[in-house]
């Protein structure tokens, strides 16, 4: 069974700020990203926080694309779907991304996510810089390497450890439901 941490329940004082649900592609990320920036500006969110929110949003969205396709998919035009919600609660901003992930990809992702939870902010920054240094010696540009830096970026932007949830859907499919929750 995969190790998972249930995400915290939303408080009653939460204010929904932004939600996207549907197909995820680079151009959709660009368009929704722009909407999100405009929304944050209209809400007068501080520029530092707004940048972190935008940064985590983009990383979460690209994760949906990179983790979304089932292993050995023959149809390369499979549309990745997911949702990302932003809400505010007690002065903090919450981002929650939901998507599907294949059984094959789940264990390594779960391992990365649970490992990140153990790190202090200083350790997260150290891991980020270490990964950056290691990358110059690698010839392949596999998506999994990118995801490492992506999750580290989300962790750097966050005010507390990332929470995640991985749960099976049914016995008819080998896809799992993935939920990532981060607070900025």
């Amino acid at each position, binding site marked *: 069974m995969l190790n998972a941490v249930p995400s915290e329940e939303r408080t009653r004082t939460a204010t929904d700020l932004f939600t996207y649900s549907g197909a995820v592609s*680079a151009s959709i*990320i660009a368009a929704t990203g722009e909407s999100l920036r405009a929304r944050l500006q209209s809400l007068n969110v501080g*520029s*530092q926080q707004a*940048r972190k929110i935008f*940064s985590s949003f983009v*990383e979460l969205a*690209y994760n949906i694309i990179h983790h979304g396709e089932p292993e050995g998919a023959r149809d390369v035009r499979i549309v990745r779907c997911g949702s990302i919600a932003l809400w505010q609660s007690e002065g903090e901003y919450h981002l929650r991304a939901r998507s599907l992930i294949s059984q094959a990809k789940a264990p390594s992702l779960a391992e990365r996510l649970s490992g990140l939870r153990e790190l202090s902010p200083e350790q997260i920054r150290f891991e980020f810089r270490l990964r*950056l240094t290691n990358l110059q010696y690698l010839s392949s540009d596999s998506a999994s390497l990118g995801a490492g830096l*992506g999750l580290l970026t989300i962790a750097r932007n966050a005010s507390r450890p990332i929470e995640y949830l991985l749960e099976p859907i049914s016995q008819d499919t080998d896809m799992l439901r993935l939920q990532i929750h981060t607070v900025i």
Partner: protein
Amino acid sequence: MERLTLSATQLTPLVDFDYNGRSLKMHGESYPENAAEFYGPILASLRGYLASAVRQQLATVVELEFVYVNSSSTRSLQQLLTLLDAAARDGAIVQVHWIVADDDDSMTELGVDLLADKHALEYRIGKTR
């Protein structure tokens, strides 16, 4: 060597590598779907220029001013700066200006992450003059 220019798009930066003028600039956003695909030709072009730059006495000035860089673009910028640093180690004079807005701590931090281990090139992180 022919100037390399790419217009900025919603997801990619303006690229203006004026090789004859030894002035290389990148400004804007960087979060394309496939950073390796976008930066690949840019790095190949830069390699060509740097091969001759190592023999020159004049400085190559690199101006990088980003509004946002996603994680996979960060990998590509690491490759770009590593190339520049290698050329500097081989004798080229390379000056990198990592330009940040006043209150952009994230971009300043990214500049440090990318440049602090580049010991041969010269660099400066800060606002535009």
